């Protein structure tokens, strides 16, 4: 959790990225009949040394966006710039040097390690692929990585099944570190782990960030974990970013009603606090991303929604201090009382 280098060029900038998945029908002539709007016109910036938390419920497109950043998905539209270069149109071979810089840690520590390979091979494979150094050097580096993530160098010849979930996730982290990347996209890195193990892995990621000056895109659905690790947080709903804010501010002063509801739904491990607070229970489920609602995508479930919300899509506007939200009736930040749609767009307040 180093302070974000707020000045200067962002390390990663995601501009108007769209990712639609086609739904096809027919046997011989596979016509496209509909599209899943997984990520729909999303823009983000990430500065060196910072941790950006990306939160949202399942199906909101947060993992798809993460995979777009590491180019595991081809973009439908938009650009991704890394260190000032557009990487969104690069070919496989052109991408190779970029892949050294951007690595990923996956959610499921059971599925993301090849059960037939030894731990040493799993961690050193990236080095072999990118041809960094000789055999002996790679082995030494692998053993160093193993001890750095809290395992023992003697684990080099073991297989993944010999490890517990938390240890496997450490192996996944060691693999991501093998090439000295600048940016790590961590997709739900702790959500499959038990509580006591979760804290260990969160602390490990934190230490590694300080030590290797890493930048994290931390994707998770657990708002408490995200608050703990992030400098800034982006909230996604149904393919759109609805709010971006410095971490503490998001929890103290949510602007988007969806963020407010999401925060109020997080169970608090304190019986009294849990009883006293007001909980906003959202009605219904997240709508289908195949036919997302018109206007603001949250309006069918929003308790502040008015006519304008169904008609016009609210832009992501700055409410001061780098706190952005896309809402016609922003909470607590609006210069006008919420609920009065006086203009077609909510003007940014002079916060």
């Amino acid at each position, binding site marked *: 959790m180093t302070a974000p280098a707020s000045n200067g060029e962002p390390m990663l900038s995601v501009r108007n990225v769209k990712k639609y998945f086609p739904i096809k029908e027919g046997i011989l002539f596979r016509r496209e009949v509909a599209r899943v709007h997984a990520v729909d016109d999303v823009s983000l910036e990430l500065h060196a040394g910072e941790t950006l938390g990306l939160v949202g419920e399942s199906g909101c497109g947060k993992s798809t966006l993460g995979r777009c950043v590491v180019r595991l998905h081809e973009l439908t539209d938009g650009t991704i710039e890394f260190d000032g270069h557009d990487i969104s149109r690069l070919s496989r071979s052109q991408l190779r040097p970029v892949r050294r810089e951007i690595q990923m840690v996956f959610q499921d520590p059971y599925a993301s390690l090849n059960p037939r390979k030894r731990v040493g091979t799993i961690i050193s494979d990236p080095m072999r692929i990118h041809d960094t150094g000789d055999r002996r050097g790679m082995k030494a580096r692998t053993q160093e990585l193993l001890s750095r993530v809290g395992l023992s160098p003697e684990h080099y010849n073991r297989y993944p099944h010999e490890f*517990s979930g938390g240890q496997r996730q450490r192996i996944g982290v060691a693999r991501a570190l093998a090439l000295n990347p600048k940016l790590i996209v961590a997709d739900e890195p702790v959500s499959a782990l038990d509580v006591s193990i979760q804290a260990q892995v969160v602390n490990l990621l934190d230490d590694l960030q300080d030590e290797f000056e890493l930048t994290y895109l931390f994707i998770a659905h657990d708002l408490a974990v995200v608050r703990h690790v992030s400098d800034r947080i982006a909230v996604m709903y149904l393919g759109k970013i609805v709010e971006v804010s410095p971490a503490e501010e998001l929890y103290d002063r949510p602007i988007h009603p969806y963020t407010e509801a999401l925060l109020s739904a*997080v169970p608090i491990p304190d019986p009294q606090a849990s009883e006293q607070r007001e909980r906003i229970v959202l009605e219904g489920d997240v709508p289908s991303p195949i036919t997302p609602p018109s206007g603001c995508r949250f309006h069918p479930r929003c308790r502040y929604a008015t006519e304008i919300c169904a008609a016009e899509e609210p832009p992501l506007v700055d409410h001061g201090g780098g706190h952005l939200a896309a809402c016609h009736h922003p909470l607590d930040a609006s210069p006008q009382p919420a609920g009065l749609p006086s203009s077609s767009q909510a003007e940014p307040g002079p916060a």
Partner: protein
Amino acid sequence: MSSASDVLLDVRDLKVSFRTEDGIVRAVDGVSFSLRRGEVLGIVGESGSGKSVSMMTVMRLIIDPNAIFEGEVIYKGRDLMKLSQDEMRRVRGSEISMIFQDPMTSLNPVYKVGWQIEEQLHAHERLSKRSARARSIELLKAVGIPNAESRIDDYPHQFSGGMRQRVMIAMGLSCNPDLLIADEPTTALDVTIQAQILELIKRLRREFDSAVVLITHDMGVVADIADRVVVMYAGRIVEQGQKSQVFYDPQHPYAWGLLGSIPRLDRERTHRLPTIPGQPPSMLAVPAGCRFRPRCPQAFDRCAVEDPPLLERAGDGHLDACLLPVEAKRERRDATIRPVPAKGPA
């Protein structure tokens, strides 16, 4: 709400072992607790702590020939462990029902949702087809499924995760059971859907006065809906008490470690999360003495030799299995975590 006759379920010294290639694994080792009518008991613990196995045993759902059971499960005066499978089948579903963690796999994909609920009604009650269908629609409405009249003819894949969990709960409640066992009912769901399901469980408990055993690893969920809490570690209960006792005056170093290691929205952000070092022991090689000793920062020489019994040490029905004197425990605990709420009365 406290007289001995109110006790609905009394589990006494339950032990479950499995014969495996590597030796005998004792998954549950002497678990005892009781539950009153209308009470919500939260069982917390990490994976492998034996919480699911204990409740599956109460339901007599473990039919592994390599499983060995000991102990008693007294439900309304009868020992469920002694019932035949036929007798047990009449208890299951009508008296005690269970909902499972994964709503995606606990429903049969090839039958309509309505059929699956009606099947259970027919198994336990003499009902006409029409009235079974009417009851099923009523149940689906009760758990908050919109358009229940038409949704009853849908297949499970046509429901979202949260909706499927509601269908599971509707099935669980179809015969108004006195005891509902919910095994991680919200773990696979998003927080906003989880909030809906927890509200639902609370409402059902008010309306039907059912007792609920809620198995979970989420302390936040327990804080929200449980009356009493059982904390399990490595097949044993290490702490048991009223919710306020366990949350505000946790006695066992594992329980307070667990509470301390969760990042919390209601507290200031800490720079580092306190952790419990190491990992849970393999059940094939359980440490001698206290099972938590190898991970316990408070361990002293007695912990290696004495197996600490679960006793009332902090008073008032608050049980724990730690050898440290209560005062020393409180002192050391308060030095590591802050169990009392930051704001508001203690």
